[in-house]
């Protein structure tokens, strides 16, 4: 297992380098220009100077190598410095966003809390709801509860967030005034009142996201439980005189969770990636919003870095999912 993990990790390095190169070339090739948001009143010569100041004058391979050095060598040093108070990275040029002229990683660190609060909570909530729903739907297959659950989850699949999002805002924020329509990222949670505020402002985006995610996970859970209910060991457990609770919640559940857990692990990168549309609708300025605004502003270092971090997460969580599978299922042995 350990060699498997290390092997995959080592193999991941060239993969990731390649991915970063592909993303870089893709972004280079993409039409669009960092000057797009500069008003038309700024004359073209000035814009050209600004481009050069951004480093766009240099040839493409040099820019890529620079980025690689900055991302893989200097940024880790910064992190190290930050933790241990050393000064390795002093004076070295970090990955700088074109929009804000500030280090991209600082922005990421700044954005992460919101994203984690909203998308993360939605994910956790969805898991908490989806698993019992999946279990019960499978246990009482074709019951009213199951049919209803299927219907609701299908709805969750079918209704796009750019439809539900504004609908929620109009109903709950505008007409009922129950929740704020704009997310306040400056809110500091330090007492019950501010916690209440935080919950209120998270409520709508979390609800929209939860519906979607719950739908997916509970379908998986149900299918997995159904598979396992037909297994022989279930009969063995019953023959031992185990209560239904033990049979379902211990024997079947443990087995059914194995594939579901890996599905959940594979979904985690998307938490960090943020939910672009939901963040936009509720003005939760998280990572997703940062990415979309960077794309709109053609802020290549930012887009490149964010997408690459996302790629790293995908590769890593793919690996984690595989390893988890091995850990949870004693039959699976990687070598």
């Amino acid at each position, binding site marked *: 297992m350990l060699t498997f993990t290390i092997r995959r990790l080592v193999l991941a390095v060239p993969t990731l380098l390649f991915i970063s190169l592909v993303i870089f070339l893709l972004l280079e090739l993409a039409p669009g220009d960092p000057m797009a948001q500069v008003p038309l009143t700024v004359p073209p010569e000035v814009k050209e100077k600004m481009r050069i100041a951004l480093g766009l004058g240099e040839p493409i391979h040099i820019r890529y190598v620079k980025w690689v050095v900055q991302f893989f060598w200097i940024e880790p040093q910064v992190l190290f410095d930050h933790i241990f108070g050393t000064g390795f990275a002093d004076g070295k040029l970090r990955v700088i966003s074109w929009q804000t002229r500030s280090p991209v990683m600082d922005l990421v660190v700044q954005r992460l809390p919101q994203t984690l609060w909203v998308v993360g909570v939605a994910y956790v909530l969805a898991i908490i709801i989806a698993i019992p729903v999946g279990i019960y739907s499978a246990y009482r297959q074709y019951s009213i509860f199951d049919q209803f659950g299927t219907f609701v989850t299908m709805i969750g699949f079918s209704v796009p967030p750019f439809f539900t999002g504004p609908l929620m805002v*109009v109903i709950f924020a505008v007409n009922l005034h129950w929740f704020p329509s704009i997310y306040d990222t400056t809110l500091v949670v330090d007492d019950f009142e501010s916690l209440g505020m935080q919950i209120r402002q998270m409520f709508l985006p979390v609800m929209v996201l939860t519906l979607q995610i719950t739908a997916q996970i509970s379908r998986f859970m149900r299918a997995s439980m159904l598979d396992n209910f037909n297994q022989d060991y279930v009969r063995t457990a019953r023959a031992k005189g185990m209560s239904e609770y033990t049979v379902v919640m211990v024997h079947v559940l443990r087995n059914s969770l194995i594939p579901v857990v890996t599905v959940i692990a594979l979904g985690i990168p998307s938490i960090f990636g943020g939910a672009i549309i939901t963040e936009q609708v509720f003005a939760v300025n998280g990572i997703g919003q940062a990415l979309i605004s960077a794309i709109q502003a053609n802020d290549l270092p930012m887009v490149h870095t964010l997408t690459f971090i996302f790629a790293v997460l995908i590769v890593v969580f793919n690996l984690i999912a595989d390893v988890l599978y091995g850990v949870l299922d004693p039959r699976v042995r990687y070598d």
Partner: protein
Amino acid sequence: MTDAAPNDPPPQRIAALSDTVPSAPPRSQWLDVWDQFKQHKGALVGGIIFLTIVLAVLVGPAVWWVDAQYLPKGREFINLRDTRPIYVALWDDTAKVSWLYPLGTDNLGRDTLARMMQGGRVSIAVGLTAMLLSIFLGTLIGVVAGYFRRLDGLLMRLTDLFLALPLLPMILVASLLFREALSKTFGVEGGVFVLVVGLIGVTSWMHTARIVRGDVLALKEREFILAAQSIGTKPSKLVIRHLLPNVMSPIMVSATLGIAVAIITESALSFLGFGFPPDFPTWGRLLNDSVDRMDLYPERVLWPGLAISLTVLSVNYLGDGLRDALDPRIRGR
């Protein structure tokens, strides 16, 4: 006691090989599929709804009296724009309604019903074809990765790559590279159609590929694959005859989800200006255009929203039923 049992058979060949199940007359496979399909109420209803929608968008624009692109002229424009749907008259008698425009008109006086039908054509066509493409790619890559061990690592890393690629820049690049060439070959709208379908397909095959690969890996260990090899089945035939039918059900699931994703992605593309020409309605565009006026004219959001959701919903149920019906093991039950 046992000897006296009434059903004591005379000495006979042990009839293990005779047909124990009352032998039904042989019948076509598709009849069986249909029979099984009918059992699934949700799927049946879903299928009917989906067919109705398809029929409506196919035939609708041809028979409906007003063209989706038609703009009223002059004074008429002011009179006709922002007509409410006819049902609004039920609770609001001051509302501007007209029987000629049962779903009302938009802010330029175009008939919402006509646009809904016209838009549905595109949305459904895009949804179906993009799904087919994505399923094709996903299955191809999944099967190849699962079947040829050598390519497995490479293809799975490719999958990671595609998962990580940001959609928007991809779209920009693709339209930069291919739009002109495509619109030369297929015409403006055709070119965009091919582009949109291609993009959605190319960016959404990864989950299918993963699932198919997993299943193929497991199937490869099954004895009937070995048996097929021993009777001289060539690898290509092996994949088509033996592997593919056995991964059909996860593919069906991916396919139904795929239509949903494709319809929704198309809307997002229209919204960002990468899709069809702006005067070309699609459900996604109709929805996006009217979100701003949601509290003023809820119907303009509601109808396209419902149309998208209903299509996706019915397709999901349809897929559920089809999956059951296509699996002979379930069908037999």
